[in-house]
């Protein structure tokens, strides 16, 4: 090291870089860090559900503010599931799939030199990083992080002092979300502009890989859906600090005193939230579906069956995702006619989803399969998409949803279809594009072992939750066994928790493989998977543009 000049070079090249590849990897690494936090929170949640009255002396010494004589405090439990959901949905899965893969791959797959607006792109990452720090900072506030669920339903989220997490923690949650939305918006503008306007001459939209198509729809979904949460968040902040009552109903009593104001509607928040919330499901899933389609093409040696119909199916899924938000609110007292309309639109989404499934079957049918690690992850996504999709059809019907609403059945459904498919997409993408990112292959044996363990323990964790939900186990309850009818589920919940622990331990294989392969992985060569898409025409690892 010769001094400041060289260190500035390293900083501008690897930290404050405008290169889309560096920014993509920055997103990916930050998301991996956030995943460790989100995963740890999930384990604590499961620990509480399985053994609610057990004294956890060792854990309580590490997190003294969350425990009272070794027993988890109820408000800490609420904070755990709130922050787990928020971190995993926005700061891990959205960031990794969209910020990570999107930034790295879109310019390469469309044949552009970089994103349309590299400075805006870098700004997007740094805002995301700040939003992550703000979200994590809420753990260190005197009253702890937000505890009103990842949906932040008022009045719990609107009233300071309602519970511990309703104080500064909830404010930081709102600020972090606002920053995240700003970051996503800047990224989405860049994605759209790059895909539409910077394609290599002669490269038509219908020649693009399905992953890039997925990012195109994701950008549109984000740009049109996130403003709804922005609007709701501004109104909630005003309710908390400016004396407005957009979401605070009349007649609330807090700590023995009547709440001032009132007349607002908590249901209004639900409408605004879910208008984002459901498209967010597809924001997470579409990249994984795109990756799956592309990998099926690469590892069967032929382009995925029904390419054009895959594009139209994604377009339909994206468009219809704006018409189904009411199915999250069937129990809110909505008109039965409106409920029926939302049930119909929800069911109709099964049509383009079915098109994708049948095209995938046709792509695999009677074809020589190369069962590499990325292909195994893609097959895992296929499995999760079908399993989770089937329970989605149940939950889309008012009659059934009213029985299952807010039960473990719903937790099982969205962890399989949304979280699982997205998470498997991250693993598929990392294994597949690792040679492009770093010039080396990941270890196949470790990769396959990681896949098999994750696949088995993922189902072992989440499939039994369907049964628990059908037997009436409600979610977000501090101690399920305060209800006699749930006591027989104790052993099932213990099994689920042990499966979750095994799932978490299995992830060590991934991190070992990732960091080991960075240094010791086999050199990849220019196109190790013999893929037909443009990103592999770059030398590996790709050199920086600027």
């Amino acid at each position, binding site marked *: 090291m010769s001094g400041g000049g060289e260190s500035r070079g390293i900083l501008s090249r690897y930290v404050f870089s405008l290169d889309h590849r560096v920014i993509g990897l920055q997103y990916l690494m930050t998301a991996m860090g956030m995943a460790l936090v989100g995963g740890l929170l999930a384990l604590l949640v499961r620990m509480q559900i399985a053994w609610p009255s057990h004294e956890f002396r060792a854990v309580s010494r590490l997190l003294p503010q969350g425990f009272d004589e070794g027993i988890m405090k109820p408000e800490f439990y609420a904070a755990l599931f709130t922050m787990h959901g928020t971190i995993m949905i926005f700061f891990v899965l959205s960031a990794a799939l969209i910020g990570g893969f999107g930034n790295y791959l879109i310019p390469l797959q469309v044949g552009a030199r970089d994103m349309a607006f*590299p400075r805006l792109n870098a700004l997007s990452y740094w805002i995301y990083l700040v939003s992550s720090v703000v979200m994590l900072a809420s753990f260190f506030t005197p009253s702890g992080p937000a505890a009103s669920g990842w949906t932040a339903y008022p009045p719990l989220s609107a009233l300071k002092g309602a519970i511990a997490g309703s104080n500064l923690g909830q404010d930081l949650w709102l600020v972090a979300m606002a920053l995240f939305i700003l970051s996503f918006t800047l990224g989405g503008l860049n994605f759209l502009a790059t895909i539409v306007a910077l394609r290599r001459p002669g490269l038509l939209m219908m020649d693009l890989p399905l992953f890039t198509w997925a990012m195109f729809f994701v950008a549109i979904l984000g740009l049109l859906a996130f403003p*709804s949460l922005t609007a709701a968040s501004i109104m909630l902040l*005003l309710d908390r600090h400016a004396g407005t009552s957009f979401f605070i109903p009349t007649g609330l009593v807090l700590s023995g005193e009547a709440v001032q104001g009132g007349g607002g509607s908590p249901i209004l928040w639900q409408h605004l939230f879910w208008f984002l919330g459901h498209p967010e499901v597809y924001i997470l899933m579409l990249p994984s579906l795109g990756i799956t389609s592309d990998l099926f093409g690469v590892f069967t040696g032929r382009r995925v069956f029904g390419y054009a119909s895959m594009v139209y199916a994604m377009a339909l899924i994206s468009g219809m995702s704006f018409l189904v938000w009411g199915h999250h609110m069937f129990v809110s007292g909505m008109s039965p006619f409106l409920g029926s309309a939302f049930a119909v639109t929800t069911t109709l989404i099964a049509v383009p989803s079915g098109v994708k499934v049948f095209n995938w079957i046709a792509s695999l049918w009677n074809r020589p399969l190369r069962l590499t690690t990325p292909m195994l992850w893609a097959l895992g996504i296929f499995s999760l998409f079908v399993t989770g999709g089937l329970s989605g059809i149940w939950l889309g019907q008012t009659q059934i949803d009213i029985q299952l609403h807010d039960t473990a059945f719903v937790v099982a459904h969205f962890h399989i279809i949304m979280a699982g498919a997205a998470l498997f997409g991250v693993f598929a993408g990392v294994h597949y594009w690792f040679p492009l990112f770093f010039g080396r292959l990941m270890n196949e044996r470790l990769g396959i072992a990681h896949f098999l363990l994750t696949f088995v323990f993922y189902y072992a964790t989440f499939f039994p939750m369907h049964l628990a939900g059908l037997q009436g186990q409600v979610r977000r309850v501090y101690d399920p066994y305060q209800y006699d009818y749930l006591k027989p589920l104790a052993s099932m919940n213990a099994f689920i928790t042990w499966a979750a622990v095994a799932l978490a331990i299995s992830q060590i294989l991934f991190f070992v493989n990732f960091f080991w392969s960075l240094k010791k992985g086999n050199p990849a060569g220019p196109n190790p998977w013999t893929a037909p898409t443009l990103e592999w025409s770059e030398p590996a690892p790709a050199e920086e543009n600027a």
Partner: protein
Amino acid sequence: MRVAASVSQGRGPALENATRVAVVASLGATTMLFASLVSAYLVRRSFADWRPSPALWPLGLLAFALIASGGVEIAARDAGARRRLGFQALALASGLYLAGALGVIGSVASAEGGLQMPFNAFVALLLGVHVVHAIVGGGFAIWVLRVEGSGPSDHGLWLARLVTHFLTALLCAIVFLLFGLQ
């Protein structure tokens, strides 16, 4: 700035297209933001306790916004004194609009019932969010019009007009919803 140079001097047609796409997409996102706020307003005004307050001062806001929008046209048209005049008109009208909007927000906040009155809260909310967008949009318009020499490109002019006219139309819609629908 790579984009600024391209936008203002007409270079890089691909990048110009990219800028157009990004601006139109951001206006789409802004439309969705205001659609969400207006939806909330329309729901809330259907409640039994809704009490609107009649007022005329919003018309002044509209006038300022229209002048500001017109200033863009003059500023963009050609080089020289007219252009300078246009910029000055734009700056003056924007300043008046900003002061007027903040004055309105302050007056509803300090009125009887303050922001606990739903109508007052929505006036402050909708105008406040519009002010933020007007500052960002106005800044963008000035940025693409501020070029040395012979004046902005057709592309820059198109972008500036699009943004300022959109913001003016948005303000008209907000004022109509707040005060015309009573």
